[in-house]
Each structure stands twice: as structure tokens, then as C-alpha cells.
């Protein structure tokens, strides 16, 4: 049986296998949202690339199911410790394990960051500015929107207004509630996207069938994940993806350059992959963990941590869920959870008394997830739980997505506990600050107001957090950041970080599209620099210029509409 990636696509075969002692150009740790794009670009440009992925190489027909409980394996379920005043729920709350990483279970909301997100310190006096601007990233947003591709309205009015290459999706019951509630309050909303889900077929990927299991991994292949958008093309161009390969340590040579990565295979046997450069793309928790675990003489506090900021400035977004009970039936399980939103409250409004803002988005919890929300929101248990769940089809759910600022004390460290390979696990500490609390309070009340305005008879809410980023942030000052604007660590010229952990701030847009756009830009930079990366310590900070010839198939002939 061929290895299936959706009902129509199969994994290109055979995949190249590098020999145990062969040196590759790039060893990429983690084939997730960012790693998948990097592997593909670098392979297309002719580099010898290996992607080490801790989890399995999914065969979507065999391994994935239309079932909540049965999708347990998609997540990073290994032990992590969580603490602080507002400890974050991890596991299914934040990251994936397996080729595709978090893009396998993301809801695929794909809004861009706003231009203001890159300058929050200049504009609002909070957080930090990015060492780059929105306009540096814009061409990559457009390109990725065509590659994965993104469906949505032809006119998206917020931030830098733009349109989407694929048409919007039909509205489900929850989107209807969002649009109705917003309209009654005079708030602008959009429906049918932006979401990285196909509204029409694309090459060997069928369009959405509205079954609502996006977070369980889309068996249909309609929802984008790097597993199906970029990894097949990477393999066609000679990359090797080594699944069940858990990186344990990046190896540093005496001359201060890295020369490869140690990893454990499925059986727990240790190997070494020699490479001329290393990119860590393991997610905002595992990336700092790996670099901290790679401490060695000269880098006692972790690799690339001369600034002492590795692991710090971890961010989440406020993700409060507001549930409203309606007289009429909603059936919130139909249609993708991600399909309508408003960014009307995104930027700072001085009248509100806090900096920055939030978005309002549809969410679509399936029964188990919804029951958990009822535990948190109304303390349901026993007969009360049975009763409220019998009304499952009468509820609609909307999410706040609020910006939480970067704070030094919110961080990833190493815990005393060890995993099965004997590696210290991550300890995550998270505490809200004054601005965050005010923002959350305002955001949740606003979304409750929208729910009432849509006609709900009862409105409840649950506080929660989503989307961890930061912890290896980029910046121009090597004493306050870990990497430069291309993801190159300030300390080690051939060691890069490229994933959500390099984000200095996160706005109130879901981070996935931005993470992939940044990965494509870093890849262009590496390709432009060529062999310099492997031999030279010179740091060139000029923009590489975008390459349009390295996209996966079916990207050509698609456009980004602009209806002014």
C-alpha cells in the first residue's frame, strides 16, 4: 500500500536516505509548520537536507480518524511541567508531534499580522518592536496564501487590507451567530475565512466537506498542513524526513560552530547526524528545551544563550471561549471550526485603558471538548452535565483571541523530571500582568455582548489560553534577543532557530501563517547566502529578495485579489 496523504495524494517514493556517517548541508529539527516549509525550500534549492521529527510520519488514511478521542496521538503528550500564577494547559492545548507538527491539528485560521504588530513599542510603548517590518514579510504572506492556499473574502478590511486566492466558505451555524451578533452591534465581520482550507480542489487535494474534524487532522486533505502542502515536494526534491527521531543535543565544535545533532531513534538508540548547519524548528517549548539541554563548556546556560533570554518572553494568546445557548438549533459541529471573525478591536484604543487588543473568532468544539468547556464555564457535573450536554446542538461558541505582551518571567526552563531518554523535560511558567488582565476582561465582555446580541438566551464563558510563541526571540540587539531577523543565533553563525519561538510579539492573529511566511523568508536568505553560512562568520543583514520559483506545484497561476 502506498503511503497516503489524503484520498488522492501519495507520498513520493522512494525517499532519499542519507547514510549514517554522511554530512548533510542542513539538519532541521522538527518538521512542523516552520520546519516543513524550510525542508521544502532548501531541498528545491539543491541543498542536502535532513528533517528530524520526533513523532511519526502520518499515513492519513491509516493513522487518522474522524474521532476526538482517537486523535490523541496527534499531540505532544509527553510530560511537561506547568506553573506560574496562571499555569497554561499544554498537551492538546498547544502542540503537535509528528510530521506536520501543529499544522496537523490547527484549526487553520490564517489571518496576517497587522503592520502595527511589528512596531508595538514605537506605537504603544509596550512589548518590543520587531527587527523587521510588515512590509518585509508581506510578499511572503501573499506567496504562502497561494501555496497552502488560503480561502476567504476578496476584501479583508483590517490591518493591511487584502483579498484571498480561494473564495470564502459557506457559513455554518456558529459563523451565522458571529455575523448576526456583530451586525446587531455595528461591528464589522467577515465570514468564510481567512482559513487555510480549500473551498475548491487544488492539485491532488479535494475541497472541504464541512465535517468539522479539522482539529483532529483533516483526512480529506482539504485543510493545509505542511505534511501535505510542502513535505511531499521536499521529498520529490531529495530531502529526507526521518520520523521517530528525537533530537537530544546540538553538537558544538571547538571553533564555536555546530557540526550536527544527536538524536534518539524509536528504539532509544542514540545517533549523530553530521551537518554543516542546524536549524531548530521544534515549537516554542521544545526549541528552548533542546538548546538548554545542549549546554556545554563555553555555553553553560544553553546554546546561543549569551543574552540570558533563551526561554524567556514566552507568550500565549488569551483564548477565552464564550458559549451561548439558543432557542433554535445550531449544530456547531458542522463546518470547519474556523470560519468567521472580526478584527475590529485589534489595535490600541486609549479609551479602553489598556494597550493592544483582540480578535473575535468562531470555534467549534466537538462533544468531548464542549463538555470540558461546560466543566470550566458552569461547573457542570453529574446530572447537570448530562442535562447541559443534551442541549449540545443549541449552543454556539465564539473565541476571544487576545494579545498578551512578552514578559521576561514567562518562560521555559528545564525541570528536574526526565523523559524516557533521560533528558530533562520543559517547565513552563506563565503569569498574567496588569495590561493582559484588563485586555482579557474587556475582550471577554465584548464577546459575551456579541453573543447576547445574536439572540442567545444564556451566555457563559471559560478562561483559557492558546498559541504559545516566543522564548527564542529575534531582535537586533544580541544582549536582549537570541536570534537576528533571519533566525540566525547571535552567538553561533551556523545555528538557526526558525519557528514560532522567534516571534518578539504576537498580536491577536493566529500565528501559523506568519510562522510559515517567516520560514519561507529565512529559506530565501539561506539560499542567497549559499556556502557563506557553512564557512563564514560574516553576518549579512540585507533582505534576500523573494524567490517565486521555489513554491510547491499548483501555486502558479493563482493570484491574491485586491479589491480596493
Amino acid at each position: 500500500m502506498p503511503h497516503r496523504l489524503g484520498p488522492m495524494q501519495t507520498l513520493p517514493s522512494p525517499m532519499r536516505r542519507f547514510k549514517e556517517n554522511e554530512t548533510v548541508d542542513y539538519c532541521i529539527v522538527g518538521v512542523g509548520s516552520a520546519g516543513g516549509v524550510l525542508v521544502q525550500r532548501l531541498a528545491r534549492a539543491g541543498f542536502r537536507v535532513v528533517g528530524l521529527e520526533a513523532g511519526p510520519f502520518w499515513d492519513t488514511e491509516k493513522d487518522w480518524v474522524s474521532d476526538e478521542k482517537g486523535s490523541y496521538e496527534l499531540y505532544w503528550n509527553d510530560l511537561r511541567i506547568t506553573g506560574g500564577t496562571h499555569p497554561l494547559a499544554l498537551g492538546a492545548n498547544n502542540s503537535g508531534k509528528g510530521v506536520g507538527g501543529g499544522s496537523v491539528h490547527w484549526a487553520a485560521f490564517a489571518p496576517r499580522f497587522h503592520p502595527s504588530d511589528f512596531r508595538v513599542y514605537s506605537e504603544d510603548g509596550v512589548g518590543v518592536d520587531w527587527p523587521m517590518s510588515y512590509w518585509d514579510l508581506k510578499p511572503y504572506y501573499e506567496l504562502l496564501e497561494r501555496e497552502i492556499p488560503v480561502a476567504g473574502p476578496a476584501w479583508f478590511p483590517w490591518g493591511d487590507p487584502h483579498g484571498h486566492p480561494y473564495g470564502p466558505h459557506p457559513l455554518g451555524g456558529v459563523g451565522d451567530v458571529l455575523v448576526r451578533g456583530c451586525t446587531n452591534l455595528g461591528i464589522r465581520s467577515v465570514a468564510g475565512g481567512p482559513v487555510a482550507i480549500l473551498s475548491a480542489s487544488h492539485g491532488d487535494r479535494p475541497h472541504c466537506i464541512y465535517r468539522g474534524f479539522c482539529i483532529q487532522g483533516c483526512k480529506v486533505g482539504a485543510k493545509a498542513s505542511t505534511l501535505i502542502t510542502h513535505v511531499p515536494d521536499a521529498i520529490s526534491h531529495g530531502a529526507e524526513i526521518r520520523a521517530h527521531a528525537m533530537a537530544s543535543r546540538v553538537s558544538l565544535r571547538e571553533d564555536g560552530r555546530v557540526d550536527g545533532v544527536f538524536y534518539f531513534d524509536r528504539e532509544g538508540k542514540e545517533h549523530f547526524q553530521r551537518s554543516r548547519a542546524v536549524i531548530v524548528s521544534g515549537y516554542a517549548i521544545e526549541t528552548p528545551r533542546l538548546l538548554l539541554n545542549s549546554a556545554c563548556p563555553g555555553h553553560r546556560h544553553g546554546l546561543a544563550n549569551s543574552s540570558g533570554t533563551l526561554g524567556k518572553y514566552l507568550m500565549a494568546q488569551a483564548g477565552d471561549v464564550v458559549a451561548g445557548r439558543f432557542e433554535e438549533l445550531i449544530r456547531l459541529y458542522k463546518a470547519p471550526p474556523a470560519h468567521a471573525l472580526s478584527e475590529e478591536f485589534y489595535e490600541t484604543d486609549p479609551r479602553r485603558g489598556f494597550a493592544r487588543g483582540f480578535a473575535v473568532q468562531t470555534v467549534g468544539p466537538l462533544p468531548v471538548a464542549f463538555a470540558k468547556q461546560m466543566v470550566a464555564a458552569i461547573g457542570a457535573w453529574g446530572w447537570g452535565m448530562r442535562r447541559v450536554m443534551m442541549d449540545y446542538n443549541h449552543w454556539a461558541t465564539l473565541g476571544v483571541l487576545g494579545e498578551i505582551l512578552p514578559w521576561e518571567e514567562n518562560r521555559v526552563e528545564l525541570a528536574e523530571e526526565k523523559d524516557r531518554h533521560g533528558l530533562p523535560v520543559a517547565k513552563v511558567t506563565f503569569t498574567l500582568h496588569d495590561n493582559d488582565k484588563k485586555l482579557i476582561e474587556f475582550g471577554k465582555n465584548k464577546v459575551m455582548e456579541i453573543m447576547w446580541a445574536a439572540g442567545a438566551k444564556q451566555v457563559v464563558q471559560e478562561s483559557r489560553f492558546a498559541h504559545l510563541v516566543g522564548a527564542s526571540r529575534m531582535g537586533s540587539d544580541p544582549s536582549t534577543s537570541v536570534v537576528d531577523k533571519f533566525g540566525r543565533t547571535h552567538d553561533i553563525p551556523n545555528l538557526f532557530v526558525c519557528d514560532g519561538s522567534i516571534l518578539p510579539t504576537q498580536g491577536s492573529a493566529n500565528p501559523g501563517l506568519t510562522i510559515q511566511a517567516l520560514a519561507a523568508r529565512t529559506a530565501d536568505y539561506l539560499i542567497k547566502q549559499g556556502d557563506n553560512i557553512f564557512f563564514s562568520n560574516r553576518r549579512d543583514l540585507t533582505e534576500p529578495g523573494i524567490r517565486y520559483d521555489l513554491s510547491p506545484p499548483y501555486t502558479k497561476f493563482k493570484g491574491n485579489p485586491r479589491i480596493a
Partner: protein
Amino acid sequence: MSRKSFPYKATGGEQRDLSQPGYYAGYSTMAQKKNWEEATRTLVTKRVEQTLAIRFFSQEQAALLAAVVDRVMPQDDRTEGRTIPILSILDERLHKNSLNGFRYEDMPPDQEAYKLAIQAIEEMAQERFRESFPDLSVHRQELILKSLHDGKPEPENSIWQRMPVHRFWAMLMEDCITAYYSHPWAWDEIGFGGPAYPRGYMRLENGLPEPWEKDEQRSEWNAPVDSLSELEEDSAPPEHGSLHGHGGSH
């Protein structure tokens, strides 16, 4: 599953046995299984047919926890052959030590947490009512569990000083809910469409049923009238916010 619940106090009504509680009479997700793809069909069918032996808990621990589960996720309204296994699913998780990806720094490991909680609940029953928890009347069992739910264990027990009661409660609820609402009989009860690949849905708006779904027919459900676990008017959300995973969200 102990079926000794009714009447609860003096006022409890007689409980009818229902093969399918809920407002979707005649709706069956399993009847649709020929329309599901193989991996899902195999998984869900196994869930309905399998019986798992208790391997993690001792007999006494299992008996006590079974009594807890019967109140936390009560099924007295379901006929004998249509009750959904919960304890065995929880036992399996702990037996395999499969984690949900994290542990609060103030919590012991999951396996230990359950053992401690079982001990605490039994001690609370003995101290308050001089009887073992499984032997208590339903009302007394609920009194003890409600105090855990409210985060104010009554009577106090030193174990809850070592392990935050609200965190244990959230984990217990998560385990029970996951077992119950991942079972197709629960999907029938709440009118959820169940697996839908490769067929998908075509009626997205206005809560309309697919041709193979059923419309809702509301009727009075014969839940006991005096259970302490009924929904309270204006029940406030617990202070501690989200304590669990993020499935189904953005």
C-alpha cells in the same frame, strides 16, 4: 455501575429505563457506520464492543472509584445493556500511564493523584458518616463529591493540602467526560453527527439535520429531581479557569 440511586432523598421520582435518553429518539450513529472510512469504523466499533479488565486499580480502589464515577457521570436512566464504560477507560489510561502532555507543578503524577484521591474520599466518608463511600446513600455520596466540586472538602482531609482539590476534580471530570462523550451512544443522546468522512455534511446553517440525522423532539427527561449535581441557576464559573486541553478551539 450501581443502580441503587432512586429515590434519592424522599422526593426522588421513579426512574424509567431508557435505551436512549435525549431528544433524538430513533437516531443512531452506529447505524451509519457503513458510511465511515475503515480506520474510524474499526476504532469506534471496538469502543462499543470491547470490555477492558481493570489492571491499574486494586479491587477496593476500583469499587470506590466506580461509586464516584456513578455520581460524577450518572447513568441510572440508561438500561443495563446500554451503559457506557467509564472506569475501565480511566483504568486503561493510568495503566498505560498515558499523559495529557503536562502536569501542574503543584500536582503529583496522575497515577498517584488518583490513588491519593481515593484514599481521601474514603477517609472523608468514614469521618463524616462512619460508613465506606460505596455504601453511602446517593445523597450522602453527592454531599461529599459536591464539596470537592466546590473546592471546599467537607470534612477537611490532609490529602487536599498536598493536592489542590480543584485540579483533581478537573482531571476526574476530564477523564469521565472523555469516556462518556466519545461513545456513540452518547452521540445519539445529544444528537451529534459522529464521524462524517467521506460523506461530509451538506446542511450547515439553521441547525438542519442531514437526511440521516434526526430532528430534535423535546420531552421531559426523567432525571432525578433532587440531585445535588443538577445545574444551578447562575452557576458561576470556577475561579481557576481552564484546567484542561484545548481541543475544539482556535
